[in-house]
């Protein structure tokens, strides 16, 4: 039993079947409920959690049809799932078998469900909630029979708000048949257009599409197993078959996948989703399979509520797989080379980038691009290699070309050093970096680099070097032949900073 504060009192939000029998109902105040049956157990109502759970269930129903949606949340209480199973039922051995399967699985994971199936959304909704016999778990309204099936049901089966129901009932309209007999125009005039619309929807006179949870992808394949799969090899083999089938379809349409989504529906009701991206449209099953396999291998151990490892393993078994190309792009057929074109395969590098990005994350596989700047740390930008860079946009060699020697390694954040520079504007004679003293034997400089004054302070704050002083860079070599790129942050000024001379930093390492 769930309760939530509403209108200054704590009211029941949802009640169990047993509580309903005891005369409790949603909307009752908690005090009244306690008076009726003092032994009730009350928990806080968590609408967000309910919604999330329902959405997850809708996802789970993706195994039956891509057109699955959570419904009834907005009207409160009578939450449910809507599935458009047109053309799907035969995959499960008919409508009855499909509903049996659906309700059976949900019951096994602990849900009390009732399923109704009919020609229209409204009729199915009504059948699931008000259909006779009351004890039946699944109710199937045969095709074309929905008008007859609806007729004896109470008007509450029309998905109407409570106040409308009240006023209709006060007029003696108790059954849907009573309502259907009335002229629609008069009905609409007295009760607004909703009752008439709901009636028409239930009778199939107006179309009522359901909006599925996720946009149904065009390139989507599904496979279900008579026996759930537990071994990794079996799952991989099944994924492999799906991948090949998907690639064949893509090839026929001359398309290639950019993003793949693989869903594993587990016995325990959990759905694991694995995604893989490619840097160019692909329909090579070997490559796509390798991308998916790498993600599959690193799926986290499923957290289960199962009491022992054995049943945890059973819950983790995979019953159904779906594979979808969420994003696909046109990909022309290519002529393959006549003999061993392996070495000249232009996609080979992309494939490597895909695999590396898949495992390490796109952020960790990068390409460098040059920027127009004279601040050393701003010259180099890097972008994920998966997105692909256009060398024209990033500037060619000209941008890279430094006017003066630059080190092959540059510290992103310059490190402070203690430098001894007896003569202002001369290179230091020695410096201490990370505790070690380096004696400078040779030096070159200064190369004076001024801050980019035309960039606003906001833009500058994004840079890794905080200060915006003029820097004097020196290329120095120590007595062991190691070379450093040091700079003095700011200029000496006898009047202004005699007490606090500018600081020295180490910025890079030369060869």
């Amino acid at each position: 039993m769930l309760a939530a504060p509403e209108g200054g009192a704590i009211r029941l939000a949802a009640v169990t079947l047993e509580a309903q029998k005891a005369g409790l109902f949603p909307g009752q105040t908690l005090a009244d409920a306690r008076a009726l049956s003092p032994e009730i157990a009350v928990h806080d109502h968590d609408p967000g959690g309910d919604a999330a759970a329902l959405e997850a269930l809708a996802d789970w129903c993706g195994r039956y049809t891509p057109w699955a949606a959570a419904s009834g949340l907005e009207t409160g209480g009578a939450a449910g799932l809507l599935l458009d199973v047109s053309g799907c039922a035969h995959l499960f051995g008919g409508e009855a078998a499909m509903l049996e399967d659906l309700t059976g699985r949900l019951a096994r994971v602990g849900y009390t469900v009732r399923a109704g199936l009919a020609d229209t959304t409204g009729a199915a909704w009504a059948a699931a909630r008000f259909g006779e016999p009351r004890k039946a778990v699944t109710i199937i309204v045969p095709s074309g029979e929905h008008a007859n099936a609806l007729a004896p049901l109470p008007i509450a089966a029309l998905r109407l708000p409570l106040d409308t129901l009240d006023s209709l009932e006060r007029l003696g309209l108790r059954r849907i048949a009573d309502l259907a007999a009335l002229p629609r125009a008069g009905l609409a005039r007295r009760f607004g257009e909703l009752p008439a619309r709901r009636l028409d929807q239930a009778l199939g006179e107006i179309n009522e599409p359901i909006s599925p949870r996720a946009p149904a992808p065009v390139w989507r394949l599904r496979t279900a197993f008579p026996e759930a799969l537990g071994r990794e090899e079996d799952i991989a083999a099944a994924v492999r078959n799906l991948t090949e089938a998907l690639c064949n379809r893509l090839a026929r349409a001359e398309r290639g996948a950019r993003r793949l989504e693989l869903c594993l529906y587990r016995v325990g009701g959990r759905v694991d989703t694995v995604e893989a991206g490619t840097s160019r449209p692909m329909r090579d099953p070997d490559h796509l399979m390798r991308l998916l396999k790498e993600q599959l291998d690193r799926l986290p151990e499923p957290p289960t509520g199962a009491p022992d490892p054995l049943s945890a393993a059973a819950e983790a078994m995979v019953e159904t797989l779906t594979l979808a190309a969420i994003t696909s792009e046109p990909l022309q057929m290519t002529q393959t080379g006549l003999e061993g074109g392996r070495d000249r395969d232009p996609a080979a590098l992309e494939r490597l980038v895909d695999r590396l990005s898949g495992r390490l994350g796109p952020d960790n596989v990068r390409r460098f691009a040059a920027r127009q700047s004279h601040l050393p740390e701003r010259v180099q930008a890097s972008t994920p290699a998966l997105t692909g860079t256009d060398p024209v946009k990033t500037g060619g060699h000209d941008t890279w070309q430094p006017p003066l020697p630059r080190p092959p390694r540059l510290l992103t954040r310059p490190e402070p050093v203690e430098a001894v520079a007896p003569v202002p504007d001369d290179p230091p004679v020695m410096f201490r970096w990370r505790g070690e003293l380096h004696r400078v034997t040779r030096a070159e400089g200064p190369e004076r680099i001024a801050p980019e004054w035309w960039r606003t302070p906001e833009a500058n704050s994004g840079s890794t070097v905080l200060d915006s002083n003029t820097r004097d860079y020196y290329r120095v070599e120590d007595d062991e032949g190691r070379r450093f790129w040091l700079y003095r942050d700011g200029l000496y000024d006898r009047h202004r900073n005699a007490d606090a001379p500018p600081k020295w930093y180490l910025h890079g390492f030369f060869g």
Partner: protein
Amino acid sequence: MPAEAEILQRLRSRIAAIERGENSLRASQAALPFGVDEIDAHLPWGGLATGAIHEILDGDDNNATKHTEIKTKYAIQRRFGDGLNGAVTAFVAGLAGRAQQGRAAPVIWIAPRIPGRESLYGPGLLAYGLDPADLIVVRVPSDSDFAVTALWATEEALRAPAVGMVCAEIEDMDLTASRRLQLAAETGGGLGLLLRPARRDTTENALPPTASVSRWRISSLPGAPAATSDTPWLTENLPGQPRWQAELLRARGGQPQTWQLEWRDARDNTDTGRHAREAAGGFALVSPLCDRPLPKKAPAAGLPQETRRARAS
């Protein structure tokens, strides 16, 4: 007798083929030359063998290896690529640039990801002929899985046919791991450089065993003390061209050797040429010091300081 010699020769080459494996025999036809005749002639493959991995040790002492307290403080910085290895980075960049051009394929550089420390710097690499636009940097998160993931990435890159060179900064690697990488390189025909730190004074025997085809230790040398007559104060105190001590510690089918190398800029320093890569210089042997009379005119054309002075005069 000549027949016997011929048979012996044939047997030897067959044994060599078996030892190196079928693939490496094919790949060894395409070695990556240093561009220094003495080194290329010394190496059994006429350069760095492709379809193989080579180990490049950083001979420069890291601070961290000297001071224990700093070692603990900067534990992560013992990693390659974050300390004093400008010298070996420059050396590898020189080789990678040659691979980029010679094999017409990009270079992949695999390094640990240390947040806020992306230290490879394009403009500096370009000076050694490595085009940063054709370089892919793979950053492996430096967590507990680092070794496994880095090895995996290196193996994948070595197997890929479209890669010119793979440079991998992997500190800890056992024999099995390096054998895996060597096998991957043989199958894919890749060329891999494993960059690892090492003390300057360790002997080859003290180093961990490896399946790599050759092992080098690169340390920095003081720059060239340019002997000049007219402006000694200028060149004496300038850091000249980069110099390295390149020790070939071991090579399969070859002898250890030590060379002193330097980088020669082909392009005039004052000229910011458009095609930097073509204009990038190359490795050259440092002429051994010996007692000889000073040449009368500007010596050793090719040293930039000399060229510049020759122009000015």
